[in-house]
């Protein structure tokens, strides 16, 4: 539902803004109990059946916004328990990153094939005839499916002349490309954290906003406030993913966005497309030096984790070089070893990547574009009123193109051709984890033998990430536009 402003979006944004405001106003942790009442009004439920339920849900959402784990309802602890731990500029966030807020979960009907009112009790009743398990009868005229017999082959769905039979799915489970979501004993959605790859697509698929990720927005706010009081201390760097370009509407240029980020208090703002350029050259070199079955890209952490879990042998072909995010951070640390680096992107999976041992020494915090927007609002920065944009020239068109599906592969192919004269590269790519795993299945079966493989967890690539503000289509066009404006230099 990216690009569509729903009451779920509204609640999430109000919550982020109020959280940041709370910190900016210097309120004491003990005052946290008052914060939900900036968002909901007792007696006037705006989103749910009653304000008591809204209050429960908002309290849990606040815990995630502060970077803390949910309170298990059974534990009978006040939601403010341990909240002081979040009042810091240090990193506190930890797994699990993506959480189901049970109080918000509506226990949507699960995977079931059902007959709707469109059924006309027709004379032909082809549904019952095509059913391989005799699961369809007509007790009261209309078709009825015996759920114990039904194997969900969908033959009845396809044959009904009225399209009266349909499959009910839980949006969250359907969005999950690795099958990590099922139901607990009470029927609430449950994420198997051993299977979850933190792509976060479920968070933007639940129409009740019952699944949410943890945020570092509080710790970043403290970092900005502390830096403001001590500008000569540790320097703050913002590194921005290439999918940023159209995120704030087509009247807000990339230069205006960088200027706005600078106004928040960052000492330097840099494109992660720089790191993408580094990776392109590295991977082109690896490719030309010869490799196993194929060379697989690694910039999407969810793709990498999903591939390793389901196809461990094939996943050996995925490069283990650093991602563009880390390459960019490494460059900064070359000249400023004490730098505090905050990655801003479309991604929840990067929050996971930043927790890994290898990456945590380079990246301090990860924010999504939506969280960045909340910072602009709370700190009073109006991007539209910026007249002098911050010039951006850290990267080439190839690096900037990483944000669209196919962009990584395209960059590597062009570079391999230019630098090593190798052409006719068999390239296969997929976006969404379900399609990525299908692609690996085909490769394993030998149905296809690519030389280069690109996997992306989000639809359309990074522009379709769960942390984005704009619709993927619009964002994709803006990415291409900004890339074309970049100088296609022989990178790095």
């Amino acid at each position, binding site marked *: 539902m990216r690009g*569509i*402003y729903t009451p779920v*979006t*509204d609640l999430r*944004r*109000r919550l982020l*803004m109020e959280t940041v*405001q709370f910190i900016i106003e210097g309120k004491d942790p003990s005052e946290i109990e008052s914060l939900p009442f900036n968002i909901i009004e007792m007696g006037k439920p705006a989103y749910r059946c009653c304000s008591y339920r809204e209050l429960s849900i908002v309290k849990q959402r606040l815990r995630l916004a502060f970077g803390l784990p949910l309170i298990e309802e059974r534990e009978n602890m006040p939601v403010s328990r341990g909240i002081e731990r979040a009042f810091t500029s240090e990193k506190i966030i930890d797994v699990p990153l993506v959480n189901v807020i049970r109080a918000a979960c509506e226990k949507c009907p699960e995977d079931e094939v059902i007959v709707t009112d469109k059924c006309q009790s027709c004379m032909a009743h082809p549904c019952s005839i095509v059913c391989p398990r005799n699961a369809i009868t007509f007790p009261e005229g209309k078709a009825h499916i015996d759920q114990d017999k039904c194997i969900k082959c969908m033959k009845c769905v396809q044959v009904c002349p009225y399209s009266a039979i349909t499959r009910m799915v839980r949006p969250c489970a359907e969005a999950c490309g690795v099958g990590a979501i099922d139901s607990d004993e009470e029927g609430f959605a449950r994420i198997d954290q051993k299977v979850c790859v933190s792509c976060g697509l479920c968070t933007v698929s639940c129409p009740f906003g019952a699944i949410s990720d943890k945020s570092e927005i509080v710790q970043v706010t403290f970092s900005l406030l502390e830096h403001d009081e001590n500008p000569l201390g540790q320097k703050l760097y913002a590194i921005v993913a290439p999918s940023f370009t159209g995120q*704030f*509407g087509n*009247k807000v240029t990339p230069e205006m966005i960088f200027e*706005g980020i600078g106004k928040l208090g960052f000492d330097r703002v840099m494109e992660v497309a720089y790191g993408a350029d580094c990776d392109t050259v590295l991977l082109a070199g690896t490719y030309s030096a010869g490799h196993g079955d194929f060379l697989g890209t690694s910039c999407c952490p969810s793709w990498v984790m999903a591939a390793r879990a389901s196809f461990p042998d094939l996943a050996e072909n995925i490069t283990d070089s650093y991602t563009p995010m880390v390459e960019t951070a490494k460059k900064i640390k070359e000249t400023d070893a004490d730098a505090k680096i905050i990655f801003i992107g479309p991604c929840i999976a990067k929050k996971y990547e930043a927790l890994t041992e290898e990456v945590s020494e380079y990246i301090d915090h990860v924010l999504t574009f939506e969280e960045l*927007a*909340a910072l*602009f*609002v*709370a700190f*009073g*920065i*109006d*991007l*539209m*009123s910026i007249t002098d944009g911050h010039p951006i020239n850290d990267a080439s068109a190839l690096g900037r193109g990483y944000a669209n599906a196919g962009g990584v592969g395209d960059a590597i192919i062009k570079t391999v051709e230019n630098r090593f004269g190798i052409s006719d590269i068999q390239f296969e790519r997929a976006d969404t984890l379900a399609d990525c795993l299908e692609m690996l299945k085909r490769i394993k079966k030998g149905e296809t033998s690519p030389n280069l493989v690109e996997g992306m967890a989000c639809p359309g690539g990074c522009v379709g990430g769960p942390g984005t503000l704009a619709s993927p289509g619009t964002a994709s066009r803006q990415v291409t536009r900004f890339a074309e404006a970049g100088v296609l230099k022989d990178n790095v």
Partner: protein
Amino acid sequence: MGEHQQKEAKMHVSVCMGTNCTFRGASQLMETLRAEEGIKDHCIIEEMSCPDELCDHSRRSPVVKIDDDYVMQAKPEAILDEVYKRIRDNREP
């Protein structure tokens, strides 16, 4: 008879497209207003820049101005209701 031939002055409906208001769905509100056939001939629908933090850090966003009057926490239904009301009021002075 000459009065009826006189064109009624068009209403100015301005939607703030500053960062705070777009954060709270101003673009979508704008599209909804532009899509409403019934008001097309009576209104000029425009974008406006942030009228100096009237919105209290987006708490009262989106901000819409109908002629000289500000409407805070603007919802499409409320704006359309108000516009239709003014169109009716203009017809029956």
